[in-house]
């Protein structure tokens, strides 16, 4: 099965996942990955990710189908953490394997840009003065808009 989409409730090592994924797709010449991790910042003690199961995993699965329909990939992996995360822990891992480099890069980039609109996660940060919800970012809208002009040729 070329698509590996998971919600994960415990810490994981992206490197092991990337190596296993690369080994599973030996016909692919290129593997692009993106890891998002909890930034180590002063006064951020923890990050909590909540989701709504009936929407979140179907959203990620639909995104996977969309990505596979847009680029000729050998494989695609989308893993997203839920629950309580500590600084420096990975939050999200996207890996795309393809025969050609550009397809792998674009697929991973597109998946990351769309993960936030197609998968539903709410995040709050624990600081010394308590918990704070993280708001939507304007940059996310700009990132998404890139793909509407020229259809992936960016």
């Amino acid at each position, binding site marked *: 099965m070329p698509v590996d989409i998971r919600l994960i409730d415990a810490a994981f090592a992206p490197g092991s996942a990337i190596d296993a994924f690369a080994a599973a797709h030996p016909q692919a010449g290129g593997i692009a990955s993106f890891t*998002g991790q909890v930034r180590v910042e002063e006064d951020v003690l923890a990050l909590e990710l*909540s989701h*709504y199961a*009936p*929407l979140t995993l*179907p959203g990620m699965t639909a995104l996977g189908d969309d990505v596979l329909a847009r680029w000729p990939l050998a494989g695609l992996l989308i893993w997203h953490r839920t629950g309580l995360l500590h600084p420096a822990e990975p939050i999200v891992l996207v890996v795309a394997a393809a025969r050609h480099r550009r397809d792998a890069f674009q697929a991973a980039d597109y998946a990351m840009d769309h993960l*936030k*609109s197609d998968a*539903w*996660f*709410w*995040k*709050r940060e624990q600081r010394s003065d308590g918990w704070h*919800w*993280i*708001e*939507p*970012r304007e*940059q*996310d809208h700009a990132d998404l808009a890139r793909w509407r002009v020229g259809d992936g040729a960016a």
Partner: protein
Amino acid sequence: MITLVFLGRLAEQAGGPTRQLPAPLDWAGLLGALDTGLAAQVASDRVRLALNGGLLADKTQLRAEAGDEVALLPPVSGG
């Protein structure tokens, strides 16, 4: 009964992640069952509703029956 599921900051504002309401439930009934501050937020353009896991294109057309789950979804967090 109908189960309301509050996500993100709405769970905090509702005082818990879920609440039970008697069936049936429509948009006016939902707003009426919430306190004023929460109802105003739910009514805003930024909050979406899902009925049994399906997003409603127009949340004011909500029609929930006994056993249904209605999720109240604030904007997702940036990254």
